[in-house]
C-alpha cells in the first residue's frame, strides 16, 4: 500500500482519537477525555511532522531519512528540542509534586 494512503489512514485515526477525547471531556465531562484528546493531539502532531518532512524531501526512498538531505541534522536538532521541552516539563512537575 502506498505510504500516502497509510499516512492518510493514520491521520484519520489520530483525529478520531482526538475528537473522541474532546467530546468526552467537554460534553460528558469525563477526565479521561483530556488524556485521549492529548493522545490524539500528539498523534496528529506526529502526522503533521510526517507531512512537513515529506514535503521537504527529508525521507529516503526506502524509508528512514535521506542521508544526502539536511533531514538527519534537522531531526537531531528537533529531537533535542523536544527532549529539552520534556525535561523542562519534568522539572516543573517534580518541583510542583504529585500527591495532593
Amino acid at each position, binding site marked *: 500500500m502506498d505510504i500516502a494512503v*497509510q499516512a492518510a489512514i493514520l491521520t484519520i485515526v489520530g483525529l478520531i482519537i482526538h475528537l473522541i477525547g474532546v467530546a468526552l471531556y467537554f460534553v460528558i465531562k469525563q477526565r479521561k477525555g483530556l*488524556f485521549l484528546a492529548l493522545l490524539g493531539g500528539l498523534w496528529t502532531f506526529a502526522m503533521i511532522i510526517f507531512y512537513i518532512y515529506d514535503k521537504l524531501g527529508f525521507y529516503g526512498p526506502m524509508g528512514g*531519512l535521506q542521508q544526502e538531505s539536511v533531514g538527519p541534522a534537522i531531526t537531531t536538532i528537533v*529531537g533535542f528540542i*523536544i*527532549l529539552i521541552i520534556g525535561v523542562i516539563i519534568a522539572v516543573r512537575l517534580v518541583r510542583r509534586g504529585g500527591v495532593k
Partner: protein
Amino acid sequence: MSRKPAGLWALSIVIGLLFIALFIYIAYDIVTKGLQNWSEWVISAPFIKLGRDFWFVIAGILWIIGTILFFIEISGYTLTRGFKIVKNRVKWDAVDVTVVALSAAIYGGSLAATGGLPIIPGFTWLRPGNSLAPLFGILFGVPGALGTSIGNFIADALTGYLSIGSIGGFIGNFIIAYIPYKLMTDHSFRTPRSIIEYYIWGAVISSIYCALYISWWLDALEPVIGLPRALVWGWFAPWVIFNNAIVTTTITPILGYILYPPIKMRGLFWKDRLA
C-alpha cells in the same frame, strides 16, 4: 548486613552481570559477523531454526494478549494478579496528563536525536533512548507507558519510519513499559529482589515481548507494509530484542537507581498516586 541479604545481593549482582555479559557478547557477535550477515548472528539462530510458522503462532498469541491488555488499560480497567479485571485507580488528573506529555517528549526526543543512524532503512535505527521505556512504566505506571507509546510514534515520524507498522510499534512500546510496571513487586532498584525482578521482566522479557509483538504485526500486514517475512523474523525480531536489551540491561538500572528517590519523594511514583 546479615548473611542472607549479602547472599541475595551477590545473587542479584551476578544475575545482572550475566545479562549484561550476554548482550555485550551478542553485540560483539553482530559487529564481528557484520550487520549484513544477519543469518549468522547468534541471536538470529532461534528464529531461523524454529522457523517463521512457529514464531508466527507464538507471537500471535502474545499479540492477542498484549492488545487486549492495552485496551483494558486505556479503557480505565486493569488485570489483577488473580486474573480479574477491575477498575484501574489511575486518577487521570492534570499530573497524569502531564506525565503522559513529558514521557512522550523525553522518549520521542531522545529516540529522534539518534534517528540519523539507520540499521534497517525503513524499519529501525540505533536507539539508546530505549533505556527510558521500562523506566517510565516502572516510575509512572500506565501514564508513563502511554507516553512511551506516543513518544515512539512521534520518533517514527521524525526519522522516516512512520507507516501502518507504527501501530505495532505504538503498542509494542507500551508493552516494554507495562510489563515491568505490572510484574515487578519492588520498583525501587534498591533491593536484590528489585534488581532481579527488573532484569527478568524489565530488561529481557519486555524486550522479547515487544520484538515478537511488532514482528507479528509486520508479518501479518506484509502485503500492506512490504517488509519480507524472512527479514521480519531473521533480522528485525532479533535486532529489536538486542537493540532494546543492550541499553535496558546497562543504562536503565543506573537511571532507575538515580531517579527513583526524587520521583518517590515528590509524590510522583505511580503507587502513591492511585485514587
